[in-house]
């Protein structure tokens, strides 16, 4: 890890804030979806026939979550030592935060898909 040949994702600092990136993306996507539907139904009075803005938003959200999960996956695998990784060392703390972030990325990815699904099946405001 300290041999000077770190990749960019290894140099990123892992903090408590990185942990909440994936679910925050979910929250932003969810809020965006809800406002988009609520405002277009209330103000335009109808459902957008091809909701391209929604598709872009969903793809962006999924990409952001996937990226965050990918970084976390690599960070979690740094400096392989046999598990369990439960020590009070720098690397184990990093591995723990990365692992939790990876899991949260998985959950958030699924949750974004859940939110996106209704648009496939529903096509009006009623």
């Amino acid at each position, binding site marked *: 890890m300290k041999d000077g040949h770190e990749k960019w994702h290894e140099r990123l600092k892992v903090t408590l804030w990185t942990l909440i990136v994936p*679910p925050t993306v979910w929250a932003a996507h969810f809020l965006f979806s809800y406002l988009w539907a609520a405002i277009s139904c209330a103000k335009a009075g109808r459902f957008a026939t091809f909701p391209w803005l929604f598709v872009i938003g969903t793809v962006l959200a999924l990409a952001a979550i996937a990226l965050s999960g990918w970084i976390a996956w690599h960070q979690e695998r740094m400096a392989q030592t046999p598990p369990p990784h*439960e020590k009070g060392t720098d690397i184990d703390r990093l591995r723990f935060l990365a692992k939790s972030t990876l899991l949260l990325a998985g959950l958030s990815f699924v949750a974004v898909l859940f939110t996106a699904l209704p648009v496939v099946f529903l096509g009006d405001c009623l």
Partner: protein
Amino acid sequence: MSLHDQDDPALRAAQEERLRAVWEPPKGLFLRWTDTNNNAVGVWYVLTAFVFMLFAGVLALVMRTQLAVPENDLVDPGTFNQLFTLHGSVMMFLFAVPMFEAVSIILLPQLLGARDLPFPRLSAFGYWSFLIGGVFVSGSIFFDVAPDGGWFMYPPLTTRTDLSGLGADIWMLGLSFIEVSSVAAAVELIVGVLKCRPPGMRLNLMPMYAWYILVVAVMILFAFPPLIAGDVLFEMERLLDWPFFDASRGGDPLLWQHLFWIFGHPEVYIVFLPSIALFAMLVPTFARRHLLGYPWIVLAAVGTAFLSFGLWVHHMFATGLPKISLAFFSAASEAVAIPTAVQIFVFIATLWAGRVVWSTPLLYATGSLAIFVIGGLTGVMVAVAPFDWQAHDTYFIVAHLHYVLIGGTLMPLFAGLYYYWPLITGKKLSDQLGRTAFWLIFVGANLCFFPMHLSGLEGMPRRVFTYPEAMGIGGLNMASTIGSYVIALGVAIIVIDLCLSPRRAKAARNPWQAGTLEWLAHPQDESWGIRSIPLIESRYPIWDQEDFVRKVDEGRFFLPDAEEGRRETIITSVLDARPVSVIRLGEPSWKPMLTALALGGVFILTTYHFYWAALACGVLTIAMAVWWLWTGTAEIPEKPCKPIGHGIELPLYISGSASPGWWAMFITMMADATAFSGLVFGYYFFWTRHEDFPPQAMADGPGLLWPMTALALALVSWLGTIAAREMNAGERVGLARLLVALGIVASLAAVVAGLAGPWLSGMDPTLHSYPAIVWTLAIWTAAHAGVAAIMQGYVLARSLAGRMTPRHDADIRNVSVYTHFFALTAAVTALTLGLFPLLA
């Protein structure tokens, strides 16, 4: 002081004597109530919340007795309405949430090896607010003025003063007061978990309970403020006739439902997660192994916290919102089952992989999981909108929510009670009585609530005081009533068990042979919390670290002494728990109690429309708060540093983002900003709901000039404070004072300019929701400008009094955090009020 010195028993005895003297609780009939130590305040808190639970339980029994047979006339409909409203409100606001705070105030310092939480007097203030507000709300039923609009208080029936009495005000103001204490506790707990961990306890070594409490306290910050915003609007409508929820004047009752459920749904998880946290502590103890899947539990806690905010509309599936909106919330409601299931599987896996020691606490834990899972499954059912339309407002929902709350909150708390009683009192509770009580509660809960699924599907609506015999649900209701008495019998046995406790002998130390820090506590109660603050290298130090208990007890770790006769604890860094500083903690004082009394006066006198007296209490509250801060915070220590042992010296004064005060201000402002977002949401909500918002006739108020002037002044106030902070740090104290004075003038001018917009446009807030919400946003922002002026005045006075210097600048650093948020508030208000009417 080296490790070697601690070999001297005389030295250790002297240290213990000094610690004991410093941490000695105040004695005497009256003075003992000035105590602020977490051991004392936490125990009062738990007892008070427990009494409120018993009270709400009795209310439920009266209701069940009324419903036992068809067409019963034990209580009249009016009383019945008061009974169910108070039952729900007390269980939620006076039992479930405060109980989690109370338990955490007791446990958290022990779990973190801290002498106390960072703001002991804030905990005491929270407790007194809770007690006063709780007695005020609960007592109302004895005068036949209890709230009767349901615990959700839906307008317009509750906002129209001709249809609802004083009860609605008592609910709204009394519970707002208690929400203040909840936010205070959240601040205390977040800073406690982030900054008061023992050296070495990195994030990956934190006890699971601390993770959960951190998550739940953050949830409180984002869930409670929207309700506070709703309460503000609600009382404006009731007391001043501002029509936020009155559809005939451009208001909308659905706005209340949104604000209420943005609070109300996360609330369910706010009361569920801390109870699960108790499992996370006791399951490893009785499985005799480390908890499996530590990161998975963090996933579950954080994931649940986020997703639970995307569920609020599932309480509003029957209000006629667009189907696509319902589908989003239905999807989120299904998704939250994933993290919830993960944590349950982690507990099962841990038990499976361990060598289980069967015990009363574990019995409660497993039993409650069984009940909770049934509630979770019916939850998935009602998350599906079409099923919800069928089951909405029937007893099916009553059954679902009681399964969730009894399995997810009440029984885990009893598990925690049996597990942690030896920690609090040094004595074990009776296994036999505990198991008897468990089986009564378990059988009673199923007998009481399972038939409700069926009576609900048969068509029995919620909140009815009786039902006709022809419905054929008399037998189901009789079963429910018998079940409720069986639960009550179980709870009575627990109460008897608790009452017998003082007569029992002391148990051994750490009677369950647990591995976590809290079990360092002695059965012979010592108020100092922990003899010396340990270095942590494992998640279960008592199991894993060699000679751990002996070393702690012999003062071989950090801060084993109190040479200066002050209460102290160690502050560490957020990620890796590196020691940062030693802070002096608040000592016993009347101030928290008196401040709570003064603030209580504001809410209670307003309920009875004694506005001048309430205003006087408000001024008194501010004066008390300033006095409290002046005498107890950012104190300049007599020396810059002190040794904490092992050759480490730590500063006695820190400011900025490393200090607990800065974090407390930041977190409080997050809550404040969330409440403000609730009000701003109101403005834009009206816009989506109404064709003409702002209405043509009123669209020229408040104009563009005054909101922008107010914004400019707020920015001057903000920049003045920031510049003053930098000048002060650069030792240019005179210039710093001048800039702060400029900030005060700008803040006061911003008050005037902010109110001038709606005032000079002659906006009458009683005519329509538009002027009402404009006035509300303007007043909110002006009030913040006023508070900014008070804070800047405080900083100036501190500087002039020599209590703030270039080196000791915590005051101005904390005030600058406030002004960041104030500037943001002013910007959003000015842009909304000034520019949005031009766009809409």
